[in-house]
C-alpha cells in the first residue's frame, strides 16, 4: 500500500472525484466496503446518479434516506429535489408549511432557476449526515463517503458551501453554509480522492480537479487511483526474447502483432500513470485491468487493504 494512503482512507468525510467513466463508483464503493468491514458504521452517498453504487455493490437501489445494505454499510442517494425537501423541512420544521410553499408550482419553478441551489442542498444533506449524532452523543455514521459527480459538476458541488457562505448576508443560510464549508475544508476530517485511467484526458481532468481541490476548494488531497491499468504481459528479459523473433517466420505473425499491440498500450499507459504520479504528488494505488469487463469490487477492496467478506 502506498505511503500515507491508509490513514487517508480512514478519514471521516471522503469525496471521490474523476472524469466520467473512470470508475469513481467502483472506488467509492470499495472504500465504503473496506470501512464497513473494519467495523466502522459507514454511509455511502451517491450524488444524482441513480443506482450505480447499488449495482456495484449488488444491493437494492438507493433511496433518499440511508438504508443498511450490508453489515455497517449504509447507502443513500442524493437528488436536488429530495435534498431540497429535507433541508427545507429542517429549516421550516413544519411539514404543512413546506407542502404549501415548496410544492407550489410557481415556487418550484423559481427554485429551479437559482443556480447551484440543488448542489447546495445536496451538500447540506451530506453535511447533516456527517454530523448526525446518536442519543449518546456519538456520531451516527463514523465515515461518510461521497461518490461525487464528474469533474466540472463536482467542483460546483464542493465549492457551493464556501461560495454561499461568502456571498450571503448573515442568517440561517450563511450559518449552514459556513459549517458545511468547514467540514469540506477540514484538515483533519476530509479527503479528496482522485480516480483516473492511465490515458490522456482522464489524467488531465484528474489533475485539474486536484488543482481545484487544493486551491479553490481548500481540501486535503487524498489518494490517487489509476484504474484499468494493464499488467505487464512480459518481463523485460522476455521482451528481449520476443524481439529476437522473426515476424516473417511462418505461424508467428498474429502472436507478434498481439504482443506488440499490447506492449504499446502498456507503454502509453505507463507514461500517463507516471505523469499522474509526478504531477499529483499523491500516494497512488493502481487497479489492474483484469479482463474486458470492469474489475471486481472485491479485488479493489483487497487493494485498499480491506478484509475479506
Amino acid at each position: 500500500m502506498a505511503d500515507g494512503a491508509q490513514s487517508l482512507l480512514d478519514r471521516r468525510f471522503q469525496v471521490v472525484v474523476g472524469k466520467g467513466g473512470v470508475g469513481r463508483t467502483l472506488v467509492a464503493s470499495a472504500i465504503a466496503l473496506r470501512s464497513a468491514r473494519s467495523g466502522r458504521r459507514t454511509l455511502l452517498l451517491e450524488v444524482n446518479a441513480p443506482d450505480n453504487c447499488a449495482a456495484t455493490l449488488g444491493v437494492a437501489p438507493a433511496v433518499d434516506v440511508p438504508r443498511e445494505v450490508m453489515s455497517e454499510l449504509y447507502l443513500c442517494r442524493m437528488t436536488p429535489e429530495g435534498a431540497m425537501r429535507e433541508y427545507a423541512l429542517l429549516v421550516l420544521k413544519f411539514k404543512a408549511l413546506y407542502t404549501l410553499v415548496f410544492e407550489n408550482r410557481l415556487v418550484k419553478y423559481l427554485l429551479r432557476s437559482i443556480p447551484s441551489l440543488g448542489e447546495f442542498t445536496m451538500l447540506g444533506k451530506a453535511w447533516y449526515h456527517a454530523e448526525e449524532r446518536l442519543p449518546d452523543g456519538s456520531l451516527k455514521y463514523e465515515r461518510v463517503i461521497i461518490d461525487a459527480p464528474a469533474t466540472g459538476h463536482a467542483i460546483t458541488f464542493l465549492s457551493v458551501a464556501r461560495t454561499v457562505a461568502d456571498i450571503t448576508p448573515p442568517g440561517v443560510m450563511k450559518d449552514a453554509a459556513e459549517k458545511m464549508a468547514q467540514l469540506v475544508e477540514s484538515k483533519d476530517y476530509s479527503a479528496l480522492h482522485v480516480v483516473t485511467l492511465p490515458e490522456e484526458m482522464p489524467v488531465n481532468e484528474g489533475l485539474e480537479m486536484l488543482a481545484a481541490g487544493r486551491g479553490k476548494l481548500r481540501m486535503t488531497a487524498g489518494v490517487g487511483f489509476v484504474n484499468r491499468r494493464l499488467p505487464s504481459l512480459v518481463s523485460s528479459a522476455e521482451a528481449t526474447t520476443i524481439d529476437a523473433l522473426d515476424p516473417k517466420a511462418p505461424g508467428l505473425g498474429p502472436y507478434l502483432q498481439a504482443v506488440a499491440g499490447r506492449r504499446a498500450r502498456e507503454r502509453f499507459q505507463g507514461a500517463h500513470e507516471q505523469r499522474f504520479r509526478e504531477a499529483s504528488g499523491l500516494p497512488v494505488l493502481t487497479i489492474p485491468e483484469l479482463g474486458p469487463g470492469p474489475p471486481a469490487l472485491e479485488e479493489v477492496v483487497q487493494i485498499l487493504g480491506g478484509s475479506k467478506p
Partner: protein
Amino acid sequence: MRPNVNQRLAIARCVICVGPGGVGKTSTSAAVAIEAARRGRRTLVLTIDPAKRLANALGLPEIGNEERLIDPSAFTRQGLAPPTAPLSAMMLDIKRTWDEVVTRHHPDPERRQRLLENPLYVAMSTALAGSQEYMAMEKLHELSSRTHDPLDLIVLDTPPANHAVDFLEAPNKIIDALDNDATRWLLEPYHQKKKLTKKLFDAGSSFFIRTISRFTGTELLTDLGELLAGFQGMFDGFRARAEAVRKLLAADTTDFWVLSTPLQADEAQDFWARLSERDLLVAAVVLNRATPDPYDGAGPADPAALLAAIQRAGGSPELAQRVVAVTQQMATQAAAERARAEVLRGAVAGTPVILVPQRPEDVHDLVGLEALRQGLFG
C-alpha cells in the same frame, strides 16, 4: 440502400457528433472535418472541450470562440495530404457565447449591462444544466447563417450526454428555466415600474416569498429577480432562434453521427432510436476503440512454431503459452465485438455501422487523426 458516409459527406451542411463521454467524439469530429476539407469543402469543426494535445494539433488557442484556420503545411510537414479547401477549428466557450448572445440580442443597453454584471448570471451561464448544449446550438445557428466567409460544412462536437434528447431539448429547457409563469409573477412589478425589491420584501405582500427567503436568504432572491428581469425582452429572440435551430437539425442536409464503443453498443442503439424517432437523419454509427484482431492480415498462427521459436531464442515454454493465451483472448474479444456490431447493424435499419480499431494511445495529433480518418472513410 442508404447512401454511405462518403456520399453523405459530399452533400451534408452540418454533421453533429453525439454520444456518451470518452468515446472519441472530438477526434472523430476532427477526422470528419479533415476528410471533407480534403474533398474541397470549406469546413469548420466546432469542439467543446478538446484534449490539450489535440487542441494543439488543430492549432486551437487556449481561449475559446476564436476561429482558427488550420495551416495546410501542418499536414504536409507530417507527410499527409493537405486539405484542398479552408479548414478551420473553433473551441466553444460557454460563458463567452452567453455574453455574445446577450450583447448582440439584448434590446436595452442599461439592463444588458446589469445582467452581465449580476453575480448569478456568471454562475448560471456555466452551471445551469443544458447551458453547454444550448450555447452549442446558438453558435451553430450563428455560424450556419453567417454571410461573410460562408461555410460548406460545420462539424459539431457535442458535450457528453446520457441520452440524445438531452442535446435536442436543451434550448427549450433553458428558455423554460428563465421564462415561465413563476418568473412572470415575480417580475410583475417590474413591468409596473415598481421596484422589484419592494415587491419581494413588502411585508405581507407575499407569504411565499417570505417563506422562501427564510430558506435562501433575501439577497439571493433579489439577485435572482434581477437576473430574470435582465433577460426580459430576449425571450422572443431565444424562441425564434431555437425554432430556426430545430429546422436546421431536421434539414435533409444535417447528419447525425452516433459515436460509441463496442462495449457501449447498447447506448449507441438507444441514441440511434431516439434520433430516428424524431425523423432526424443518422448518417453513421461509429464504434471506436474496437479491439484489433491479431489474426487480421498477419498470416496463419501456429502455436507449435511459436513455442519452437521462443525456445530457440532462450525463452520458456510458459512464455509461449502466455503469448498464445493473450492472442487468443484478443481474437475472442475482437470476434465478440464484431458480432455485437452485426446485431447493431440489424437494429439500425441500414445505417452504416463502422468499427474503428483501438490505437495504442488516444488520438492527439494529425497522424492519429489520419489513421482514424482512414478507419472511417477507408
